[in-house]
């Protein structure tokens, strides 16, 4: 409904039902980035058109050799501990991230970042070791929130974990572990991003950032009016909520989609034909659309998601279901026999494919259903897919991280640009191994395309190169997409102007207000 028909009421508390509780407010996990962006301001923000716009930095420029970035900071910004925002503080933050303060931030900068210096109070230079035209785009992510230097230096790890000091629209009031984090309005707020809908302090007094792990409970709490906004709306609840008048927001995360990367270093998928046969044997689209209830978007591209700049349709459409082709490819690859259960064999060996997945962490319930569907579809052509749900502790402990432990890797990685391709497909060397390459194989040709793209300044030329890289991945069937990771919100009709930020889809409550 247009805002004009309803009157805005100032103040109020937004009760927000989130899914997962992180250990800290600030950190390298997307759950933390969502929280950080309420409390910390970044240097830059991303608008709806994927344009980088000012936030704490009023303006920025890049040197001709692409190696020096100069940021001019907003004037008169203070952190909530009273210390002023200066270029030196921002430089300190850069070094802090790379020194282990934020592991994800450091992954994005590593290899390019050299140093940061304060030229004066308001001028910061960031020196790079290699050209990185998408630096500003990446800095829009929540991992790059700027914290008070004094707080980082003088407070304990525990305090900085629980209530980091930034200059954001909200301040952490307290954290009832296991239940909620209470954020209150920063009454002195002066530094909204340029894509915000208003200036000055936030409209609402408080946000109760509640943790409601169970999706059914979450949806129910919204219907019952106990929450005003919920995150991660279960696909099945989508239509019901929509028809009940709730406003539904869907943000397709840019970056790597939920995809399958084949292990091309050992096992059956060393053979490209077998990989292609696998891709042809699946009807990913109908599976995703059925199980995803039309809410979860199908993604054919194994490189980046449809929301990512530089996305290639061609790569996405390469493999439509075609069991005949799959059969003949497998025959050609020598998997001609069939065992008692109908699985293909070659030299007495069954076409066995091990597919471990992070159950409940990387792959949610819908995802698990989709994987089971894929398993059943692949069975028809003779693949024996072994689904192995890996508990979180084992997963993060590095189980199933070795090439001889799995044939397919499932996973996503949110990113602002197609630069994510570099992280996933960069070559590994003994000195600098790349554990993020799930194919466990170096593809120098692919890497050179991606690196060239990364350093190309002109966006169109850059996107063309990224598309080429995706097509390479698709043609050689190194990875195939399944579905796009979503960030969804359902918002009560009495709450207006909640929006999802464009870097990672987190909810932004700064502009939100209640209506009567």
């Amino acid at each position, binding site marked *: 409904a247009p805002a004009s028909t309803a009157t805005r009421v100032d103040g109020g508390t937004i009760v927000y039902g989130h899914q997962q509780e992180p250990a800290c407010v600030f950190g390298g996990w997307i759950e933390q980035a969502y929280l950080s962006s309420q409390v910390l301001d970044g240097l830059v923000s991303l608008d709806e058109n994927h344009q980088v716009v000012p936030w704490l930095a009023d303006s920025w420029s890049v040197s001709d050799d692409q190696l020096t970035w100069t940021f001019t900071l907003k004037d008169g910004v203070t952190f909530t501990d009273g210390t002023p925002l200066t270029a030196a503080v921002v430089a300190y933050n850069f070094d802090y991230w790379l020194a282990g303060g934020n592991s994800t931030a450091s992954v994005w900068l590593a290899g390019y970042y050299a140093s940061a210096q304060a030229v004066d109070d308001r001028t910061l230079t960031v020196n790079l070791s290699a050209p990185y035209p998408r630096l500003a785009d990446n800095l829009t992510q929540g991992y790059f929130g700027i914290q008070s230097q004094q707080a980082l230096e003088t407070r304990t790890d525990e305090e900085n974990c629980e209530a980091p000091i930034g200059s954001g629209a909200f301040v952490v009031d307290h954290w009832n572990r296991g239940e909620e984090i209470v954020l209150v309005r920063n009454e002195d707020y002066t530094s909204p991003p340029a894509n915000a809908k208003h200036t000055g302090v936030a409209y609402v007094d408080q946000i109760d950032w509640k943790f409601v792990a169970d*999706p*059914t409970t979450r949806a129910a709490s919204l219907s019952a009016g106990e929450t005003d906004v919920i995150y991660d709306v279960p696909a*099945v609840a989508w239509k019901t909520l929509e028809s009940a008048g709730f406003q539904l927001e869907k943000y397709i995360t840019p970056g790597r989609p939920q995809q399958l990367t084949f292990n091309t270093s050992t096992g059956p998928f060393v053979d490209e034909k077998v990989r292609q046969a696998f891709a042809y044997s699946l009807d990913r689209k109908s599976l995703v659309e059925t199980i995803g209830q039309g809410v979860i978007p199908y993604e054919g591209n194994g490189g980046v998601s449809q929301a990512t700049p530089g996305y290639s349709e061609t790569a996405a459409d390469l493999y439509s279901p075609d069991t005949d082709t799959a059969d003949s490819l497998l025959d050609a690859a020598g998997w001609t026999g069939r065992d008692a259960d109908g699985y293909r064999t070659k030299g007495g060996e069954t076409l066995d494919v091990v597919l471990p997945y992070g159950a409940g962490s990387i792959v949610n319930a819908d995802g698990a*259903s989709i994987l*089971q569907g894929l*398993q059943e579809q692949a*069975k028809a052509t003779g693949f024996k897919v072994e689904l192995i*749900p890996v508990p979180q*502790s*084992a997963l993060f402990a590095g189980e199933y991280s070795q090439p001889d432990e799995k044939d397919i890797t499932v996973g996503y990685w949110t990113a602002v640009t197609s630069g994510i391709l570099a992280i996933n497909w960069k070559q590994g060397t003994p000195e600098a191994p790349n554990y993020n390459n799930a194919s466990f194989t170096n593809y120098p040709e692919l890497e050179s395309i991606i690196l060239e793209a990364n350093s190309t300044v002109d966006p169109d030329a850059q996107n063309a190169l990224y598309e080429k890289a995706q097509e390479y991945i698709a043609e050689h069937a190194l990875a195939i997409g399944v579905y796009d990771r979503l960030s969804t919100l359902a918002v009560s009709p009495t709450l207006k102007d909640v929006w999802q930020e464009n870097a990672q889809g987190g909810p932004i409550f700064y502009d939100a207000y209640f209506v009567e």
Partner: protein
Amino acid sequence: MSTIERQTPPTAAVQTPRARRRAAPPAGLVVASGALLLFATALVAPGLLATHDPYALNLADALHAPSPEYWFGTDEAGRDLYSRVVYGTRESLVIGLGATAVSLTLALVLGALAALGGRFVAGTVNRVIEVLLAFPTLLFALLLVAITGPSALSQVFAVGVGSAPGYARIIRGQILSAKNSGYVEAAVALGHSDGRILRQHIVPNAVRPLVAIIALSVGQSIVWASSLSFLGLGVAPPSPEWGALLDAGRVYITQAWWLTVIPGLVIVALALAATTLGKHIQNTLEKGEK
């Protein structure tokens, strides 16, 4: 009914075993036996009962409510829930029976040592039982699954070991009471050897109540194991193990109640049938009949 039986002094003069055998069994027992027969069929030959392929996708019929075609409805990928429940019986029962076997074996060893061991052994084993009791079962399950990965086997062990110390205590009590019983003293007075007394009196009498416990435990183990599935510690998909079915259906509860309610009822039905039978066995044994 039980009340009448209990009022009657169990003497031969009043009631001969033959008369009792002729009396009709209670209705509950008949229903329970019938249910167990169905479960047994599903265990041995699920093909006889199933109406569909339990794994086959039928995307067009996803989330179909129970109907003459799909008795229990279908899930989000259009798989027939009824057939999945039937095929899931084997894994569920294997978990129930396996966990029971594990826990009772462990409990027997611990309980026997605690009751019959020397002062030191008994004392130590008793402490071990205490520690095991104090150690949260859930944590044990979490750790076990973290080490071995989720599978039916890890569920069997998690549930089995988790419930063992409780049973060990029961068994210890049983053995002690048999050991201190009049008939053991009578056997000592007759000059029988320790081994013979152990074999002929203590072990059989201590084990006797276990028959009932087994029946109760199978149902409880399945319930327990299904709780592990809920926590994501269940068996690997696409197994239609009941706990896994329940867990998978949970997301759809508001739109497709049958996915959660029906497997839940099946679990409860099995637990109820097994318990009813177990109680009956216990009652029968208590009356001193064979």
